[in-house]
């Protein structure tokens, strides 16, 4: 019982860390919307989470999830981080698409909150299980 709860909490914890990481990346993209030459970055959440939870070593999962897998186009610069292709060409070579970033930001915020609730529910379940039967 405790082991399965622990596994759930661990998985959701990794997901939460990755969501926070992605939120920070998108914030960086939005901040650099007017910077000449800036390339918008993002990572494949499903792949990063698979890498993070598959590694299943505490403390190493998150780093592997974000940086571990190689990127075909920029293998040395930001392994695991991908560069967005510009939706429209522009002269200053900035590839931030504000509509896409805003949508990704809102989407990620909602999913962060959802993960937060999953963690919260796991904690409440554990607390409930620890209570003596007559305390219900």
């Amino acid at each position, binding site marked *: 019982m405790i082991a399965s709860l622990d596994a759930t909490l661990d998985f959701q914890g990794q997901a939460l*860390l990755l969501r*926070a*990481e992605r*939120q*920070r*990346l998108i*914030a*960086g*993209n*939005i*901040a*650099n*919307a*007017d*910077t*000449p030459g*800036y390339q918008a*970055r993002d990572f494949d959440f499903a792949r990063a989470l698979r890498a993070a939870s598959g590694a299943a070593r505490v403390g190493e999962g998150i*780093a592997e999830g*974000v*940086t571990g897998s190689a990127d075909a186009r920029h293998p040395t*610069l*930001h392994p*695991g*981080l991908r560069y967005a292709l510009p939706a429209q060409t522009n002269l200053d070579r900035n590839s931030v698409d*504000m509509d896409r970033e*805003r949508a990704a*930001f*809102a989407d990620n*915020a909602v999913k*962060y*909150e959802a993960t*937060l609730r999953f*963690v*919260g529910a796991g*904690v*409440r379940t554990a607390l409930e299980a620890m209570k003596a039967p007559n305390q219900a």
Partner: protein
Amino acid sequence: MSMLRIFDVAGSAVSAQSQRLNVVASNLANADTVAGPDGQPYKARQVVFQTVLLGPGQRGADAADPAGAGAGVRVSTLTESQAPGRRVHDPKHPAADADGYVTYSNVSPVEEMVNMISASRSYQNNIEVMTTAKSLLLKTLQLGQG
């Protein structure tokens, strides 16, 4: 805690955009000036943005991009437009030259207004990023309560 770095990233963007607004205000205010203190007509100014990495523990470090670094913004340089100033034939004007022409600043009010709208939208976007990050962090703080 990567969520906390969002405030650094969005904060740097807000301060860069406000600097841009400041320059736009100064350009618009000088759209009709004839000569500055140095005897030259005012030249339109423009900020140049640059990405700055906000690494863990080291603000503004230009080290190789670690995955944990946030991509902030700073104003790297201020450039002056070298376009020729607007010349108007007005021999009665006290600042007129020998041919009767007065040289005004080279500010284009239309460009400045567009610049202002863009800066203001970017500012709003970054404020919203901070608001969202704040509400997510507050909810994270309440994790496991109630």
